[in-house]
């Protein structure tokens, strides 16, 4: 009898732990998704560099569509040099690993730089990190989609 009760309690604890983890992951997914939308849907096309500066970690690194590695400073400078940018994302998925989140998705962008038009479409993979309760993007890769 006692053994049965112990097993039942252990199972109940395990279930509640799993539920708590699931709730935590779901909460984090929502927060990271909101961060990504803020950056990719609003700040990027809107040229909101204050938001971009706050959302990207100082150690942020981008591997660009052309295979170049760029620091946060270089990325922001490159964005400032654009005349215009139209940016659309789809199929975004967030996977949570504790205080780290991986975001995958597709993007389409087009715009003008120095009066010349450009267009790209591909996939992105972002790594986000919980830094003292605030989620930041610490790395990103953009690559042509097959």
């Amino acid at each position: 009898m006692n053994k049965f009760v112990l097993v039942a309690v252990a199972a109940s604890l395990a279930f509640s732990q799993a539920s708590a983890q699931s709730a935590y992951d779901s909460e984090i997914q929502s927060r990271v998704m909101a961060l990504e939308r803020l950056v990719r849907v609003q700040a990027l096309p809107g040229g909101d560099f204050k938001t971009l500066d706050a959302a990207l970690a100082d150690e942020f690194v981008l591997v660009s569509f052309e295979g170049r590695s760029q620091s946060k400073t270089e990325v922001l400078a490159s964005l400032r040099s654009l005349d215009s940018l139209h940016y659309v994302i789809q199929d975004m998925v967030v996977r949570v690993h504790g205080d780290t989140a991986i975001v995958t998705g597709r993007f389409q962008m087009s715009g003008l730089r120095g009066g010349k038009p450009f267009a790209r479409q591909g996939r992105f993979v972002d790594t986000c990190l919980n830094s003292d309760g605030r989620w930041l993007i610490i790395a990103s890769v953009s690559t042509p989609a097959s």
Partner: protein
Amino acid sequence: MRFALIAVSVLSVAAWGQASSDPGTAAAIRALEKQWTVGQARNDNRALDMIFDNGLVYVEYGRLVSKGEYLSRIKAQPTNLDQISIEPMTVRTFGNTAIVVGSYSESHIHRGKRTLQQWRFVDTWVYKQKGWVLVAAAAAPVAK
């Protein structure tokens, strides 16, 4: 893709960010990157299974694949078809997360003609119960 390989030449490795105060972690991550390369070269799915998180996402030639899909491809592929040279990489650690940025060159022989493509990658490792595991990897072709 990158690890069907065969010759690995790590030219230099630099660590920065928090890694500078934790060289042990950076060394561990570099060792895992090498295990990945060697494991793939030998079609050693058991070794790869240990270092890949079950939730791994991998963008390979612009296609998003899961751990299972990736391991299936490795298992089925013959060795020695491709040659990969791993070039300089940096390891940055942020507590239980490590970011590796580097490049590699991949050569193929197709219909008797050798082609070379350089890729730049970002790998993300997370420290979990069993140690460091790869949770994400993606690469972009370097424009010629």
